């Protein structure tokens, strides 16, 4: 997982400017970022402080810290370094000061280029990794560069390995479990872009926004190879309108954005709903409201996705819960959008966007793709909005189809697409557009339970928290607790059978990366408490007293935190 500062070049040695990577190793499949770090390598003590203050390190965490600051010419820096070192040691961290810069200087004139390789070498030694495998990876990474660069990097890698071997008495062995099937390793945004190609969509219209943009970067690299277009529009509204235009003219198109962009697109999304143009909207959620926390994770857009625009505008909202799910969700979304002529919003988040996780290499299927644009003549007498009374579905007329001429409009319209102010017609239009949601809902199955089919506590989540919630459930069940988890892929509509599941547990609680009030705030009571988004939905739909827990710390929720929350909740029940 990446730790990304908001600035491109944050001031050196600033607490807020921490950038880095979190790596979780295990012999089994890793489903989430885990709890506190057991080992950290830091190039200066100030950025390390940000992680300490954010409670990101375990109590006995091993710290490998660049030691050049101790003798820095600037007395303030040297003093700050010494103070932090003392503080870290006093707090119980196992601090090792490492002369990374000094060792790298023996090999390269500018250690800023190459210190990372030295650190990688140290890690390979500490975690008993195969050094030859690391050499191979370095060679692969620099395959397009000069041979000298590759050799220099391998020297640095080996120097780190040797230094750690000679000077550190830290050794872990985490045996790798080798997959039997080929796996691909990408982050969520790359998976989204691959999903776009695999879905058969041909136009992606976007406007740069963090943390969604890297999906478009990668898509821009590969989309033209399949004859398709990433269009960077003049703004978020235009991006969405462009996608709607492309979709109207034949094949479903998509727009990809993040919270502020979703807000701007709402009017166009409403038009797509009203005129029944298929559209896929991907929202890589970040911290909000307003500009919020662009590089940090949050699940704050659920209501905006479901109810963001004005008027009654039913659309399908689904959330990807893993990197693999990012890939397949886009394919599914395109298919639903074109089958039901609806807007499908796919929610991911900043955590999925930048995290990497292996998943089985997909086997391409032509079923994923959209059929060719229908240009056959429309039967005479057919009407552009001939809503089926049972399902609300109507066959879409595409420009180029003879006899299909009509004027699509965002105004209330009748079956001929004529503007209509007749009270019955407006009622009829809204009814049929809503019916499509019910027709789609009938195709859904209730999410499978993780853990047991009944018990004391049910944890409910959606999106990127799946791995952490399930890991917490596993730990709790090992302690003998009757805890299960249910994770939603479709938030709107929700599958049948959920209410029944909710009643099988003594307590139900959602775990979400969005805000809810806590009773320990003096003003908060049962009458004014604001619930997390999913909790509010479940309460209103099923009339079940669903509790919730949420945080908006801009960090992925940790399995340990969830386990603690669940234990507290169960203690409260007794």
């Amino acid at each position, binding site marked *: 997982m990446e730790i990304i500062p908001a600035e491109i070049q944050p001031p050196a040695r600033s607490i807020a400017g921490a950038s880095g990577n979190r790596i979780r190793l295990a012999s089994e499949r890793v489903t989430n970022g885990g709890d506190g770090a057991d080992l950290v390598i830091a190039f200066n003590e100030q950025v390390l402080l940000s992680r300490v203050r954010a409670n990101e390190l375990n109590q006995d965490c091993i710290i490998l810290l660049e030691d050049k600051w101790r003798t820095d010419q600037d007395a303030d820096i040297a003093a700050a370094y010494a103070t932090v070192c003392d503080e870290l040691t006093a707090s119980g961290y196992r601090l090792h000061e490492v002369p990374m810069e000094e060792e790298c200087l023996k090999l390269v004139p500018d250690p800023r280029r190459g210190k990372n390789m030295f650190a990688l070498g140290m890690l390979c030694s500490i975690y008993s990794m195969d050094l030859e495998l690391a050499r191979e990876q370095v060679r692969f990474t620099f395959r397009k560069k000069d041979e000298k660069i590759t050799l220099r990097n391998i020297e640095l890698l080996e120097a780190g390995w040797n230094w750690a071997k000679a000077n550190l008495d830290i050794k872990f062995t985490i045996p790798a479990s080798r997959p039997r*099937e080929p796996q691909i390793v990408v982050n969520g945004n790359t998976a989204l872009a691959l999903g776009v190609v695999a879905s058969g969509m041909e136009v992606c219209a976007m406007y740069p926004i963090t943390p969604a943009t890297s999906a478009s970067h990668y898509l821009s690299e590969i989309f033209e190879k399949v004859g398709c277009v990433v269009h960077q529009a003049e703004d978020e509204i235009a991006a969405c309108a462009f996608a709607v235009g492309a979709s109207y003219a034949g094949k479903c198109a998509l727009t990809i954005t993040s919270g502020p962009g979703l807000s701007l697109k709402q009017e166009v999304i409403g038009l797509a709903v009203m005129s029944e143009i298929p559209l896929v909207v991907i929202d890589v959620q970040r911290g909000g409201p307003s500009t919020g926390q662009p590089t940090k994770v949050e699940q704050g857009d659920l209501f905006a996705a479901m109810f963001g625009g004005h008027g009654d505008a039913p659309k399908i909202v689904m959330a990807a819960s893993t990197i693999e799910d990012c890939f397949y969700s886009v394919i599914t979304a395109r298919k639903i959008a074109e089958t039901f002529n609806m807007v499908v919003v796919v929610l991911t988040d900043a955590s999925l966007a930048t995290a990497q996780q292996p998943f089985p290499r997909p086997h391409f299927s032509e079923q994923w793709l959209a059929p060719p644009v229908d240009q056959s003549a429309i039967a005479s007498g057919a009407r552009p909005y001939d809503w089926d009374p049972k399902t609300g579905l109507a066959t879409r007329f595409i420009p180029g189809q003879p006899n299909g001429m009509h004027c699509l409009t965002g105004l209330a319209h009748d079956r001929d697409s004529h503007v209509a102010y007749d009270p019955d017609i407006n009622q009829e239009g809204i009814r049929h557009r809503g019916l499509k949601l019910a027709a789609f809902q009938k195709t859904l199955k209730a999410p499978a339970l993780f853990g047991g089919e009944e018990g004391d506590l049910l944890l409910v989540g959606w999106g990127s928290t799946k791995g952490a919630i399930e890991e917490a459930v596993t730990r709790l069940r090992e302690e003998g607790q009757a805890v299960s988890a249910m994770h939603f892929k479709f938030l709107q509509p929700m599958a049948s059978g959920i209410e029944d599941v909710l009643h099988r547990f003594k307590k139900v609680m959602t775990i979400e990366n969005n805000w809810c009030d806590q009773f320990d705030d003096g003003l908060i009571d049962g009458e004014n408490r604001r619930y997390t988004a999913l909790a509010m939905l479940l309460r209103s739909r099923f009339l079940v007293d669903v509790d919730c827990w949420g945080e908006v710390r801009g960090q992925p929720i940790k399995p340990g935190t969830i386990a603690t929350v669940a234990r507290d909740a169960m203690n409260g029940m007794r």
Partner: protein
Amino acid sequence: MSAPLTECLLRTIDEHYSLQDYQSDISPRWCTGCGDNGILTAVQRLCRDEQLPPEKTVFVSGIGCSSRLPHYMNAYGFHGLHGRALPVAEGIKMRRPDLHVFVSTGDGDCCSIGAAHWIHAIRYNMNMTVLLHDNQVYGLTKKQASPTSPRGLKSNTTPSGTWLDPINPLTTSLGVANVSFIAQAVDWIPELLYDIIEQAYRHKGFSLVRILQRCPEFLPTLFDPWVRNPASTRLLVHEDGIQLSAALSKTYRNQEVHDPGNIHRAREVSSLTEEIPVGILYRDDDVPCYEDLREGERPNTPGLVRTVLDEEFDKFTIWPEEQPTDAAN
């Protein structure tokens, strides 16, 4: 082998589109005397003369009086959102170069709420014909000042008159990179209105025609000084632009030979305030169209998608190690 001659002839007659073929089953609901009626007539004539198949023709609009035009055409129409006609039209054209795309927009739609799209649409230079119905007032919302309203105009939101000079859509458009066709027409000279829209349609690229049109309901006398005094209308004539009939030439004697290739003179003429220039202000046939620049080298086919996906997956794949023990067992 070949079809009988009579059948061919019948087919030709069959496929000949008449004016009625472009008229929808809804009769226009614009006010009597509204300039939009004349624009609709000119567009229907153009479709007939160019024999555009109605199913291959798309009229896109935003919101406002102007934007009702697609409802009155027998073609595909897209009456969307206020200000957003242009990006919708761009999306339509992007993957469907076979469609003839027209946009009807108003002074509020284009120059106010959709101003960003207007500027960028000029820069994209996608092949479409854009009719800017400019009556210098908001009509559908009942008389508010628009960005092209003359300074001092009293309206419901400016009861003591507007404070600012209007935006000049012509000079603004002529300042944008990749501008390829800018013209001005007036509803009270229908002959030229038609000629100018025809040239706009025939130009490959983004053709913008600003049409000064009268709003009989809210600003019935706004254009009277020009309508009543032909000398205050300057007709831009050129062998590459508009040529005048003898009758027109006799009425409108204020003429200037203006080469549409001359952008500097185009900007000067566009800046006139006392006179209204009518004709082709600027045309450049060499500006590339965005949809051509972005046209894929290969069409999207299942085979191609499979190949490219496999290439990409290869970059990210960890292959399982050989498992000789299994084989040995």
